[in-house]
């Protein structure tokens, strides 16, 4: 009895302390932004725009400008009536101008801070940054801008996808660069996809079109049901793409053979070609496209296909460190595509 009299209050104090209810801020006293826009300010280095969804389905905008990102966020906090909580930021929109100067600082800020999720997505806004950021579409309260990039929602293989941790990995990696989706404000939808920005280390050095992004996604084996058009008489659906890389280091320099194997299904076939003809055509088309991209990337010194990864087992320390600078531009890259036409959906193969 005496024991219980002592133990009970002690346990009760623990309940009070451990419930985590001290200096709590209620959820209706917080702004929970989902999108963070970062552009170059008029006077200072960074201008931050936060998109906060409200209950009525609209969006509220918060702005701040300063020399550092965290100070700009702090300025927003001072201005705002409620606590600004970055925990739910899911999308970073970076202006093209800033991306061309390098995004390492932004990636470092977001990785370092413990309240920003490293799963958030990164995209670059081309054209008018403010128009895209302040863009709202009416009568669709369910739409949130990061759904556009989410593999569980509106993502399609023509769009590149880049998460914060992937950007972080590639900024520091010796052997890999990355592609970031390039968007601008859409007419009736939130965004219109413009292709991908090619990043070399942390700088944007060029762009890939939507069609070229698809090839990049095949190389990343990030593939779910993408459609390819063939010279106006057929279009196919890619069911599965696998890629095999064979890296060799010859006396002339690095040499990479990539074999892409596609499993496809035919969606439209206006001129009643045979499956073999279509397979051959697809093979020719993709090989040509892939070689064009590969050449382009080498001239930009941006290894976004991750070719260097395949050379990691055979490179020594010095070669590893100099991959992006010295060896990647000298790479000899051969790409072969093999195609397996799995079916013609509900039609038979011979249509005559």
């Amino acid at each position, binding site marked *: 009895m005496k024991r219980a009299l002592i133990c009970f209050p002690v346990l009760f104090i623990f309940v009070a302390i451990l419930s985590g209810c001290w200096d709590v801020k209620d959820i209706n006293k917080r702004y929970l932004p989902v999108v963070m826009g970062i552009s170059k300010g008029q006077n200072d280095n960074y201008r931050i725009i936060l998109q906060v969804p409200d209950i009525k389905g609209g969006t509220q905008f918060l702005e701040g400008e300063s020399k550092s990102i965290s100070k700009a966020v702090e300025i927003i906090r001072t201005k705002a009536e409620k606590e600004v909580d970055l925990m739910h930021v899911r999308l970073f929109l970076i202006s093209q101008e800033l991306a061309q100067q390098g995004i390492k600082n932004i990636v470092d800020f977001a990785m370092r801070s413990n309240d920003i999720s490293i799963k958030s997505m990164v995209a670059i806004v081309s054209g008018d940054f403010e128009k895209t950021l302040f863009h709202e579409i009416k009568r669709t309260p369910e739409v949130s801008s990061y759904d556009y990039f989410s593999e569980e929602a509106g993502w399609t293989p023509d769009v590149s996808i880049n998460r914060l941790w992937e950007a972080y990995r590639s900024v520091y990696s010796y052997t890999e660069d990355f592609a970031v989706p390039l968007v601008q404000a859409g007419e009736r939808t939130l965004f219109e996809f413009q292709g991908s920005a090619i990043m070399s280390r942390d700088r944007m050095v060029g762009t890939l079109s939507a069609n070229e992004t698809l090839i990049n996604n095949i190389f990343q084996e990030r593939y779910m049901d993408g459609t390819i058009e063939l010279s106006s008489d057929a279009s196919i659906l890619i069911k599965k793409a696998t890629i095999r890389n064979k890296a060799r280091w010859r006396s002339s320099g690095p040499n990479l053979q990539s074999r892409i194997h596609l499993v496809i299904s035919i969606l439209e076939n206006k001129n009643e070609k045979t499956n073999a003809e279509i397979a051959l055509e697809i093979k020719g088309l993709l090989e040509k496209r892939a070689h064009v991209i590969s050449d382009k990337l080498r001239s930009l010194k941006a290894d976004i296909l991750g070719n260097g*990864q395949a050379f990691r087992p055979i490179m020594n320390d010095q070669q590893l460190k100099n991959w992006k600078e010295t060896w990647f531009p000298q790479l000899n890259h051969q790409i072969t595509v093999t195609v397996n036409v799995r079916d013609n959906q509900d039609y038979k193969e011979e249509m005559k």
Partner: protein
Amino acid sequence: MTKRMIFILFLQIQLSAALSFYTVGIFESTTKGHWEPILAGCLLEIVFLWIYLKGLSMSKGKNMVEIIKGTFGKWGAMLILLPFFLFLVTHLISLVNHQVSEVNIILLPQTPLWMTAMIYVALAAYAANKGVLVIARMSTAVLLLFVPFVLFSLLISYKNFDMYNVFPLWNPSFSFVGKPSFYVSMYAYAGFLFLGMLNLDKPIKLRKMWLVLSLVVLFYLAVVYVPLFVFGHESITLLIHPTLLASDTIDLEWVVFDWLPSFFVVAASALSFLDAAVTLWMAILLIRVLLFPIPGKWLALTMGIAVFGLSLKIPNMHSMNRFDAMITFLFLYGILVVPVATVISSMRQRRRQT
């Protein structure tokens, strides 16, 4: 206490060490061939575990302190075991600080550090006071409740693995031997020392432990290689919680909780708290056998307050890292000298008897 419970406790103490700053030490000690320092450390542990068990099996029913005391006398034993005692206390301080700072950074940024540290030390002191039997029983519950989360967090990011990040696989120069970080990370191989404090009538045999030991090696490899697969070495060296962040890279909409690392932190805290309880229990036992047999609860209380006070004396991560580097020789002493002293004492006693 059955053998199985001992093995479960052993496994979890090792796992707790692996989930603390072990990974960072390994990534600092080498840029390639990460399996080399891991396996070298595990091999060292297994060799000295074998020596330790050999020494213990020669004098059944006694613990390591009694064995050493029997041969070298009270003062000799105190001299031999003083660094070991210091190791236990400093290890405890380091454990508290690392866990509390991890909880503070990841889980509770608003809660003051001393509050988390106080609860942590109080729980460990309570468990240590109850004795190793209670801790071992609790470890079985922890195994069922928390270790699945650790496995889940480790394996959930498999989708983001890029196997090429493992390369270069071979480091012919074994340069990690010259790196201080390698020795700092060696605290993780000291988890077997509690086996000598148990007063077992039937000694543990090493060949019965193969399953547990291979699980330990697998875990040690996994906590290093999972983040390596995800991030690659160049970027991972900047992070202080690589394993934890690796578990955060996956976006699963079907998991109700958005913030998966919180599971990881909670599980790691539960495991490290087991480690702290066992360490404190060992320190109390040492004092009671060698110095004065005062009741355990007063010792647990004073040591708890002392550890709490000392851990508050370390103001930042920088001094924390310096502290870890400073105590390196203490746990090396624990791993190397204590098993050898045990086996020598046992052999002398046997010779004296015959």
